[in-house]
Every structure is written in structure tokens, then in C-alpha cells.
């Protein structure tokens, strides 16, 4: 990084002047790396992007070797949660906040930052772990968390993450596979029962539902139809999180914004890839999230899944959107994050090559216009 950048980074955020980034290329919303573009940043926002940008007085220009891309966003995750984000004695917990279950000193935050992730949407658990209540029909509030810098990029004892938004969306769960579990002694044992509970909760009023919409966990066509009906009745916009065999009901989600889990090593099977292709062909806007029963996957999982998606579908743009703009939209932050455009947050990652190039590595990470991570220097091959 340019030596002047180091001085600028040390300045408090509010006092920092604007600066202009001049990388080798910039990854825009079409997913392609465009050379010859400049990015004007002031405070935590991108002010302009283009072959030429306004030059505010005092703005420094930093030449960067590499490709500048929007930071990755994890659409739905359990990263950093101490224990589980759930209240397992009730099936309706609208007051629960995932933000209050976080361990902001979890060292994984730094590893995810180093993997190019600039925002993580932490969600409450959709399924009850204790078995008393089979699903958390109304699970509570999801939260958006930003990994923070450490070492030279943060004060001593500073947390490794910070909550950017503690109340992004409410999470509802209609996972049919979880109804009537073996150990269930209470809670809904069928979809109609869960819908009855959901309807009651919505009639009683879920705060800010209309403004913020809701995440809806589904795993069947019936669940999708039922949730859509509830959304129309109670006037909220659902952001879908699809679980189970998505290929069996994906047609119901045609044209929708849908979160899909990242694949682990053993899951890259032909059926999974074919499901991606068909969802894409059905106009589904896909976002990838790392939430899974056994805990967060390795930090590279988001990017690996995106690359595999690009290879399987031939659509690099959709692959990049799945871990940037679409994922941010799942978290209700579609305008602010996941893209390099005027008005968006300056959550930027400098890569040695296109972020979907498997041989590329993270060189530095900027969140809100502030560099929070820089990889150890190495001679590029």
C-alpha cells in the first residue's frame, strides 16, 4: 500500500480527508474487473467511481496493485455466537436478539476478515436444539456484524468485531423437517400448527416487521406457499432462507431473493450443482450463507462456494452477487453494502486478482473507509 495511506489510516475516521483509490482494476456490479477506474472515498462512503472522479481539496491518491472488489457478505450465519442464538423454552421469541449472544472476541472474526468478509449477518436459530419446541416459529432479531481490525489496526483490547445493526430482520421458521421431532413434547407438529402460531404472533404485532421485512426459513413448497400467504396478509417482504432439498421445491421461489447454505467439502455433488443451475434459470437471486447445524465452516467457504457456482453455472456475475449484493440484500443492507458504487459503504477488499480467481489472495481489507487488515507482503507470482 502507498506509504501515505498508512498516515491516513492512523487519522480518526471523522477527521480523515477524502482519498482516491487507483487500483489495477475495479470489480463493478457486472462482476467484471474493469481497469482504469478510480474510486473516491470520504469517511465511510464511496462518493464516486469512474475513469475520472472529482478531486476534493486535499484528497490523496493511492495507487494500488491489485483488483478492488466489494467485501464479501455472509447472508446468514452463526459465526461468533456463544452457544446458540435461541430461547429453547418457547416457540415464539420475537424479543430475542442475536446481537446479544455474540462473542466479539472470537478469534474467528479475524480469520473471516482475512478471507475478505466485511459483514456477517448473524441469525437466530431456526430449529430448537433442546427438542421441547421443534421449531422457533418466531426466532427473533438477526444482526449485522462487522469484523474489526486488530493489532496495528485497532487499539489494545479492542473487540475483533462490532455490531453494525442489532435489528436487521425478524426471523421466522417453517422448517417442516423439524416438526414433530422425536424428542418433541410441545411445539408445532405440523405446518398448519406452525402457521397458526405465526399468525397469532403477527396479529399480536412484531415490531418493525413492515419496515424491515423478515427472514423466512423454509424447506418445502408448502412452507413457501404458506409463508407467502402470511406475508401478503400481514404485509411484509420475506427474504427466503432455503434449507433441505431445494431442488424439490425451488420452482416455488422463482424470481425471489433466496439464501442458500454454502456447500461443505462432501456436498459438491451433481444434484447440488444442477439445483443451482435450475434456480438461476428460474430467475432466483441467490445469496450464500454459512449457517449450519454443526457450526460455521472454514472462512474460505463463502468464496469457494461462489467459485464453484461460477464454474457450475457459467455465470460469474451471479456468483459474485451471491456473496456481495444479494447477501447484503438478505440482511436488508442492499443499498449500502456489497457493491462498489456511489453512495455505498466503503467496504472494499484489495485482491491480487479477481476475487473469483482461485489463485487470488487478499492483500488488504477496508471497512467503512478504514483499512482494518493487511496481509503479509509477498511477491506475487
Amino acid at each position, binding site marked *: 500500500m502507498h506509504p501515505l495511506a498508512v498516515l491516513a489510516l492512523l487519522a480518526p475516521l471523522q477527521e480523515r480527508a477524502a482519498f482516491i483509490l487507483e487500483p489495477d482494476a475495479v470489480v463493478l456490479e457486472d462482476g467484471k*474487473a474493469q481497469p482504469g477506474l478510480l474510486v473516491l472515498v470520504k469517511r465511510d462512503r464511496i462518493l464516486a467511481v469512474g475513469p475520472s472522479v472529482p478531486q476534493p481539496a486535499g484528497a490523496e491518491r493511492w495507487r494500488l496493485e491489485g483488483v478492488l472488489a466489494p467485501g464479501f457478505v455472509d447472508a446468514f450465519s452463526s459465526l461468533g455466537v456463544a452457544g446458540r442464538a435461541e430461547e429453547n423454552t418457547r416457540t415464539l421469541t420475537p424479543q430475542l436478539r442475536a446481537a446479544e449472544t455474540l462473542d466479539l472476541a472470537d478469534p474467528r472474526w479475524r480469520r473471516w476478515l482475512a478471507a475478505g468478509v466485511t459483514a456477517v449477518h448473524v441469525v437466530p436459530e431456526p430449529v430448537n436444539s433442546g427438542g421441547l419446541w421443534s421449531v422457533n416459529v418466531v426466532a427473533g432479531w438477526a444482526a449485522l456484524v462487522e469484523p474489526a481490525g486488530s493489532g496495528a489496526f485497532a487499539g489494545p483490547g479492542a473487540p475483533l468485531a462490532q455490531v453494525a445493526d442489532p435489528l436487521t430482520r425478524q426471523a421466522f421458521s417453517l422448517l417442516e423437517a423439524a416438526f414433530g421431532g422425536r424428542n418433541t413434547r410441545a411445539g408445532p407438529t405440523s405446518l398448519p400448527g406452525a402457521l397458526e402460531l405465526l399468525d397469532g404472533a403477527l396479529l399480536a404485532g412484531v415490531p418493525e416487521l413492515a419496515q424491515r421485512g423478515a427472514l423466512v426459513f423454509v424447506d418445502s413448497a408448502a412452507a413457501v406457499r404458506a409463508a407467502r400467504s402470511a406475508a401478503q396478509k400481514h404485509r411484509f417482504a420475506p427474504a427466503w432462507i432455503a434449507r433441505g432439498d431445494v431442488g424439490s421445491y425451488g420452482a416455488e421461489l422463482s424470481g425471489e431473493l433466496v439464501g442458500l447454505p454454502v456447500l461443505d467439502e462432501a456436498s459438491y455433488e451433481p444434484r447440488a450443482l444442477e439445483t443451482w443451475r435450475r434456480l438461476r434459470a428460474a430467475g432466483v437471486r441467490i445469496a450464500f450463507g454459512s449457517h449450519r447445524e454443526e457450526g460455521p465452516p472454514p472462512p474460505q467457504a463463502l468464496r*469457494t462456494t461462489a467459485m464453484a457456482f461460477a464454474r457450475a453455472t457459467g455465470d460469474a456475475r451471479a*456468483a459474485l452477487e451471491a456473496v456481495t449484493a444479494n447477501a447484503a440484500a438478505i440482511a436488508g443492507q442492499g443499498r449500502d453494502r456489497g457493491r462498489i458504487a456511489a453512495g455505498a459503504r466503503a467496504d472494499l477488499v484489495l485482491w491480487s486478482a479477481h476475487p473469483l480467481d482461485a489463485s487470488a489472495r487478499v492483500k488488504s481489507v477496508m471497512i467503512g473507509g478504514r483499512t482494518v487488515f493487511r496481509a503479509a507482503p509477498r511477491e506475487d507470482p
Partner: protein
Amino acid sequence: MVWPTPSRHLSVSLRAGAFAALAAASWQRPQEPPAAPPAPAARAASGRVILRADAAWVDPQTRISPAYIVVADGRIESVQSTEPRGPGKRVEVRGTLAPAIVDAWSGLVPEDLLQDGHPTALHRVGDALPVDSPGADPELAARVAAAFQAGIGAAWLSGGAGILQRGLGTPARFSGSDLPVATGFEALEVSLGSARLSGPAALLDAEKLAELFESAEALRDAREEYKEKLEQYRKDLEEYQKKLDEYARKKQEQEEKGKEEEKKEKPAGEKQGGPQGGGGGRSAMEPGGQTAPPEDGWQRGQRRAQEGGPPPQEAKPDEARKKEEEKKEGPPKRPARPKEPDRNPALDLVLRVMDRELAVRADANSAADIEKLLALRERYGFDLVIAGGDEAHLLAERLADAEVPVVLPVSAPGSGPPEVRLAQRYQELRRAGVRVALASGGSDAGAVLLLLRAGELVAAGSDPEDVWASLTSVPAEILGVEAGLGRLRPGADAVFLSFEGRSPFDASAPSRGFRP
């Protein structure tokens, strides 16, 4: 238009219009690949085809730009950077052409082979492959097509896992029908206990493999001994025949002698007690007027023995008895045919390994097992390939000294401690000079992840040429198919990986398997 050199870091999308401006009118764009694999006839190379690509990765160290590759009858005729002369259908290929990947550990075998948890040691994967005919195995063809689209042009096919000896695996090319066709060198496959197996097979260890070799050696020794015994038997048989002939001759002589003596004695016998003269008198006649049959030499000998009676035979040493028996006028004893060692086809395979007709491909992960394999190899001198190798990097120097290559799977659930990443294993092995092939590890998931994981090795600091070699030329050598695969050179198979990004690892741009 200046073609960007392959060393640039930018991923620059190709400007098709520029090519159109450059290209002569005779250049034809290839059709977009159809969703379903086309009929073999449509894809089979017929006549001469001249491919023109922006660049070609000829081998891990050599790049040319632009690239003209002449293909005839499914094989590369020439690779050059200037337009060739001569007839041929001209086809423009967007992007870069590289040799197709050789997957040194693939699961592209018929489903029933995968399900077979107990193949016999004699199981030949090559025999279990379907006939290369469209529709012979649609499910396998679909998987092969998917692998080909991922850039894989050939693979090592393993038998099912589950026992110590898994039979003979084989390298295979992919036909126009998207079916594997066995080619190259078979190898005897073994799985040691540390490999990713469950159940009783997981308890097997290198000691049992060593016992197998010792048993094979013992079988060989037994066969050598049998040969010698057989040879001796033949000689003994000849000798026996001679003795038998001699015995028969002597017996004949004795009989004739006996008859003569009979004749001499007969007249005296007749004078004494029988009718005189006339010859009609009765001699020592049996009652009833029958003449006792003349005594032959054998009978005479017995009579004399009875009259004189040799003293009772005392227990004598075998040799003395033998000599005595030889003196007696008895038939010689026929020599006994030596017993042939039992046939053991499984051990025969091991013997072929010891004779270096077959290599051994060992699925082994722990350093202890690998060490024992190296010791076994040193003792018996066979060709060895290590597959899996979670802890192979701990023995990198020894593997390099022994020139034993290692096949590292990029996707292997449960393989070793998570902190020992693929990058660390790969780099340590390569630093020591071990030949390393990167492979899918026998799963469809691995095939999807192969290029991605290889790219991550480059991101982690590995030399990109090295990594590319580990996907192409090195596995081709290990599988014995280097003449036709792994490099773009005259005589090689015309099966390519075509990519539009800055490298095959770049998923931001299209890439696919390509066969003109």
C-alpha cells in the same frame, strides 16, 4: 491488437470483435457447446482441423501466443505460434487452450463397482468398465461428461475400497461416448489401515502387506524348488525306466535260463520214476497225470531260499537294506512325482509386482505406514505410488530419495488434522523434490473442487507452473499415459481445457473441456 501477456495479473475479458477484425474470413467460430453431450459422431474429429486460440499452455513451462494447433484423427499433429499451411477446417477458439487435466485419483467407475465393498484381489477395474458404446451406461456417461466439462480428460480408476488388496486399477481416457476406456499401466492397489476406510479393513496395516510379499517370495521359492524336483524327477524317471527295462530283460533271461535247465533236468526226471523210453512214461507227475509246470528262476530262487532259508532279516539301516533290495531280483521302485505348490492367483499378482511388471499403488496416510511401504519397496524393488498421503510431507526427503510420487486428493473428508492443510503438505513435498499429482480423490465433489483447490495452492504461495504440472504432466507420467496426455505435443490426444480467464484457476471467466 496487443494480446495481453499471460503474466499479467488482470482478468481481462476478451474482446471478440478484435478477433473478428484480425481473423481471416475463413475462420469459423465454434458452436456454443450444447447443454447435453452431442452424439459422438458430431464430436469425433474427422479430417484435419486447425485450431486458432489466443494462447496455448503447451506444457507447464511453455506458453505461446497466438496458438495454432493442428488436429487430425483425434490427435495433435502440430503446435505452433504461426499459422500453418495446408488444408483443414479452421476453428477459432476463444481464450487459451491447455492440455486436459489428468485426474490421478478418480471415482468415475460404474456404480456397482463403487458399491462393492469386498472386491477380490484379482478384480480388474478395466474388465468392469462398460463397453464403449453410446447408451451403455448413461449414469456413468453423465458423470464423465461433468468431469470433462470441469476440464478432466483422463483419470485413474480405482476399484472399490474395503480390503487390503483391491485388485488392479487402471488409467482411462474418455471416449467420444463419454465413457472411460482403459489405457496405460495397471497397478495393484492396496489400502492400508490408516486410509479412509471403515470397518475391518481399517484395521489392516503394513505388516500384513509385508507378509503378503513374504508369502509370494515363499511361493516363488517353492516353485523354484518344485522345478528342480521336477527336473530330478524326470531324470529319476528315465533312470527308473532303464532299470525297469533292465529288470525285464533279466527276468526274461532268467525265464529262458530256467526253461533250459528244465529241459536238461526233465529227461533225468523221466528215467527215474516215470515211463521209460517211449517218452511216454510218467515223470514227476502230479496225481491225475498233470505235469507240474516248470519252475522259473523266480520260483527256484524262492524254493532255494526256503530250503536253505536265509537267516531272518534283521533290522538294517535303510542304506544297507536298500542295497540288499537292489541285490534281490525285484522290480525297481517308481520315483514319486513331486507335489506342485498350490496355485495362488493373488500371490501371482504380487510376484508380478516383484518382477516390476506391475506397480503398487498404496492408499496410505500415516507416516508409519508410508515408512513401511518405503522399506518394503527397498527390499523388493517394485514401483510404488502413494495415494492419500496425509502425513507424506513428514517423509518428504525419503520419498524424494526413493523417487516415489505422491497423489494428493484435494477433497478428502476426514483426512488428517485440519491444521495440516493441503497447501502445507503440497509445499513441503515439492520443496523436497517429490513428484506430486493433485487429484479429485475419488469423489464427484473432488472433481468440482480440483481446479479451485489447485488455485488456492497458488494463492498460498506455490509456484503456478508447479501446480499446473501437478494437474497435467506429472499425473500423466504416474499413470503411464504421458505419450498422449499432459502436454500439447505432436501425437498427443486432442483433448483440451479451454479457458478465458488469466489462468485455468480463474472462475470469473468461462472454462470447459474441449474436444474438436
